């Protein structure tokens, strides 16, 4: 058992993907190319990454595209299994990787709240209880019986965000989901965000947005091609990230 103050403990995690040079998904392809050896390119998405996140901490992960940030979040969410190393999670984790998972455009807003809520780990009773709050927050009460395919993209995101923030979890994994909706809805989201942080929830946040990383983070992890470059003060992580970024250009 891990220390009660620790929310997430990541130890020596590595993950690589095998990218076949040519795909052989069908039997025909396999037979035709039986004699030639299958060649793979191995892509190391993460190499020996270790860190701990304390309960109630706001932990940011920064890095360029393809540096392994999203792979790391997917491992934390249990979608990918690491090749090496271990992950220990203390508390219920909310996979916030993308908004509106499972949203079905042919169903009404109401049905989608139930579907998405269930997938996010809410029980039916919990959804029934917070249904009114979800609808009120999304400001979609007039359209809630309309099929989601008739929603504007902004409305869809509003609905998805409203369900997601009502999925009461102890650990949130956020992959750049803050900038949604129009200005007034964004302000509301930031308010919710503030309240979440105050309520002592643990947040793992992946972003390119320097402002929000600096503003909210307690600590930050800077990843570069799957390796840890720096863990610690967000200011320092950001300045290192920005300087290498500038140097490259």
């Amino acid at each position, binding site marked *: 058992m891990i220390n009660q103050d620790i929310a997430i403990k990541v130890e020596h995690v590595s993950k690589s993907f095998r990218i076949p040079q040519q795909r052989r*998904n069908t039997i025909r392809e396999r037979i035709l190319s039986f004699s030639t050896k299958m060649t793979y390119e191995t892509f190391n998405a993460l190499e020996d990454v270790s860190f701990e996140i304390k309960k109630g901490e706001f932990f940011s992960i920064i890095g360029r595209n393809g540096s392994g940030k999203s792979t790391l979040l997917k491992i934390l969410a*249990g979608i990918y*299994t690491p090749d090496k190393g271990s992950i220990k999670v203390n508390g219920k984790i909310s*996979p916030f990787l993308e908004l509106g998972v499972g949203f079905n455009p*042919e169903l009404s807003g109401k*049905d989608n709240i139930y579907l998405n809520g*269930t997938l996010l780990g809410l*029980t039916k009773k919990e959804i029934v209880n917070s249904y009114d709050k979800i609808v009120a927050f999304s400001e979609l009460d007039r359209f809630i019986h309309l099929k989601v395919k008739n929603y504007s993209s902004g409305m869809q995101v509003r609905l998805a965000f409203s369900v997601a923030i009502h999925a009461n979890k102890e650990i949130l994994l956020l992959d750049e989901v803050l900038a949604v909706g129009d200005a007034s809805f964004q302000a509301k989201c930031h308010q919710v965000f503030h309240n979440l942080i105050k309520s002592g929830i643990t947040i793992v946040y992946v972003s390119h947005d320097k402002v929000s990383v600096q503003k909210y983070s307690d600590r930050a992890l800077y990843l570069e091609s799957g390796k840890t470059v720096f863990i610690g003060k967000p200011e320092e992580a950001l300045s290192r990230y920005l300087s290498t970024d500038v140097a490259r250009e």
Partner: protein
Amino acid sequence: MNQKNSNHNWEMIWMLAKTDLKMRYQGSWLGIIWIFLKPLCIFLVLNFVFSHLFFKDNQNYSMRLLLGLILWFFFSETTTVGMNSLISKAGILKKIYIPKWIIIISATVHSALAFFFNLIILFLFLFAYKIYPGLPQILLFFVYVILVFGISLTFSFFTAPLFVRLRDLNQIWEVLLQVLFYASPIIYPVSAVPPKVQTILYLNPMTLLIEHSKMVLIDNTVPRLDHLLIFIIIFIPVFFASLWYLKKSSKNLIENM
């Protein structure tokens, strides 16, 4: 805690199944009636052809055919949707962690529902033909039904992850289902084939289940229970092997989708 988790798993299965059901019948003019209509039409065609041409003297041929067909549809639909289930939910699986067995079972809910509706029709027909199976026979029949579902699930647990890597599987299975249909005693009784061939037929698990179902429901007899016992003794370890395989292959499944 555990109780809550397992409740939630069943809620998730039902929620996914309900969405599938809504999608399947939305915009369709006859809607849910297709559950009855499809097997009934196929039954009428086969019955017209075979009861007049080949099995004139076979008592209650039509009822035997209907029973065999209903069990067969249950098997073929469950295995087909089960095999396709993980791929068809790739969009969700790539973004959220859901145990794979939940996805597979939720996909089979529709075929199980369809089966039970068809069963009602079957019993109405049986009563109309004045065939009244006894209680032990009906109980035995439900053991066979559970086993049909069991082997279909076992098959799906093996093939759903395999299908992610080998995309020919659905085509192969479509052809194999045709072969198995004629290798099962649906349109003919097992007794119609030579004894040597019978032995081969029994390698197909559906043969025993369909043949015994006909015996209990239509002839109102008790078939050999030792055969059923052997069947179950083979089935249980294979079922657990399929669960083990699903768990093992789930490890690197999502990135290959």
